[in-house]
């Protein structure tokens, strides 16, 4: 390979060059490669999602690195060039000569983002099978059977050598890997799920608490792994961990429960608000009554204006707009408001007829029956009998 500086005119490369990136082309194959130029500031180029190398340090120290065996042409090419390419089988991170390659660096080098599937190129056991908690790799070892199958335990008590593979859960009895048929021939029934105990390698039965701690640790590991591999946000990772803790719930019961709760709550809220408005209207009208009895017409109109705009109008408009949400209290408050509207008309006379552009006194109602009586007036203001 002979890498030389690209001197062509293709815009996607020239634009990168103008941004300070180093664009190389291979004279043999024509392959393009974009690398960080000498002027590039690595701090600036770090993708915003990864502002520190904490995650990488963690993966470097705890990862299970093995030689990369995926199909990504970029890494395969590096391997052919003699670079040491390794992949962590847990997180999927790839490092070249010991340095973890971020997606952004991959993009800078190849001009495209890495395929997500590269993380699953790696064969291998699951996280929990790796014995992350104890830091031991049990994938290649046969261990003494530590599960709960009473038949196998009985064999062990008889001195038979019973082993189990930590990665595959296969059972080996006296050096022979048992199939379910072997088990059937021995015990007359097929085996249940014979699991490797990953919790307690000492051979004792795990406590319930240790089981729960183990499940919790696995979910935490799972959430962390997901957030690293698939680029999920931190809150998403927390949710992945949290959602498994939610109790089950019956849909029908839940919907009826929520519906009744909201129905009762909005009815309570509406009627209580109407009650507060009623208090305001009641004392506001009482003030008008006192001024009316003091026979000060100017102040009466002054205060009637204020009370109408700031107490009556919001109260009655709320009553009309939201009161029907509680049909049980609506009629009662309707009577209350009709009564107080009659009171207002009684004290203010035809004041609102002129103030609001309509003959408010025509809306005077019979507060005893609740029925509306339209009063007719002559042009001189006297009522039609």
């Amino acid at each position, binding site marked *: 390979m002979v890498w030389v500086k690209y001197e062509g005119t293709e815009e996607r490369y020239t634009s990168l060059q103008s941004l300070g990136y180093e664009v190389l082309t291979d004279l043999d194959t024509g392959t393009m490669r974009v690398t960080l130029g000498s002027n590039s500031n690595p701090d600036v180029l770090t993708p915003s999602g990864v502002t520190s190398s904490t995650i990488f340090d963690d993966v470097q120290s705890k990862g299970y690195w093995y030689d990369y065996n995926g199909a990504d042409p970029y890494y395969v090419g590096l391997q052919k060039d003699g670079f040491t390419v390794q992949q962590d089988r847990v997180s999927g991170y790839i490092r070249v000569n010991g340095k973890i390659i971020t997606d952004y660096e991959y993009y800078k080098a190849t001009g495209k983002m890495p395929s997500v599937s590269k993380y699953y190129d790696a064969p291998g056991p699951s996280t929990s099978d790796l014995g992350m908690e104890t830091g031991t790799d049990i994938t290649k070892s046969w261990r003494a059977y530590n599960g*709960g*199958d*009473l038949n196998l335990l009985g064999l062990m008590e008889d001195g038979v050598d019973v082993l189990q593979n930590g990665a595959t859960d296969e059972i080996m009895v006296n050096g022979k890997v048992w199939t379910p048929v072997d088990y059937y021939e021995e015990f007359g029934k097929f085996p*249940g*799920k*014979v*699991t490797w105990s990953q919790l307690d390698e000492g051979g004792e*039965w*795990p406590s319930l608490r240790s*089981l*729960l701690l183990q*499940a919790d640790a696995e979910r935490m590991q799972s959430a962390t792994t997901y957030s690293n591999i698939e680029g999920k946000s931190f809150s998403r990772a927390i949710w992945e961990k949290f*959602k*498994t*803790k*939610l*109790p*089950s*719930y019956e*849909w029908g019961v*839940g919907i009826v*429960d*929520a519906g009744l*709760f*909201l129905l009762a709550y909005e009815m309570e*809220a*509406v009627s*209580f*608000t*109407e009650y*507060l*408005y009623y*208090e*305001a*209207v009641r*004392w*506001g009208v*009482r*003030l008008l009554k*006192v*001024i009316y009895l*003091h026979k000060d017409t100017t*102040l009466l109109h*002054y*205060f009637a204006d*204020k*009370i109408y*705009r*700031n*107490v009556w*109008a*919001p*109260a*009655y*408009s*709320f009553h*009309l*707009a939201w009161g029907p949400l509680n049909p049980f209290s609506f009629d009662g408050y309707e009577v209350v408001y009709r009564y107080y509207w009659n009171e207002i008309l009684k004290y203010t006379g035809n004041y609102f007829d002129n103030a*609001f552009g*309509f003959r408010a006194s025509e809306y005077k109602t019979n507060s005893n029956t609740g029925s509306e009586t339209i009063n007719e007036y002559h042009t001189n203001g006297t009522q039609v009998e």
Partner: protein
Amino acid sequence: MVSQTLGSVQIGGMNEAVAKTGSTLRKAFPYALKFAEGMAFAIELVTFQLYFYEEAMVLFMRIYSREIYNKELDKIWFDQVVNFDFIFSWYVSDWKQYGILAVYSYNAISSCLYQLRAWREYGEILTGGMPSYYDFQHIGDYLADAEQVKNF
């Protein structure tokens, strides 16, 4: 078998298999209910806190309104400066700080405050004072609603 029992880990009262297969919405539902109940509790807390001020003012107004009706000027002056202002300032202060959390009763309480302040204004006028301007915020355009009332 013992091992099979231990292998099925219970998570939050739910079998592990169920925990992994239930839909997200289904599992989130009870928590949404708890959230709604928490919101309702906050609203009720503030609403009743302010309602007790309203009750205190009503107790006071039974005396104060009678004094105004009888034009007992010295009592009016004393009561509105000492008692009215004492309760009312706490009432307004709490309403301004927390009233917005009361959500649905916010406007109703501002109407209550307004008519109380109107009583005090009339008391001031009786004791030689001047008409004064005051305002208590309403959420929304209730005057537009009042137009609906007019057309009703």
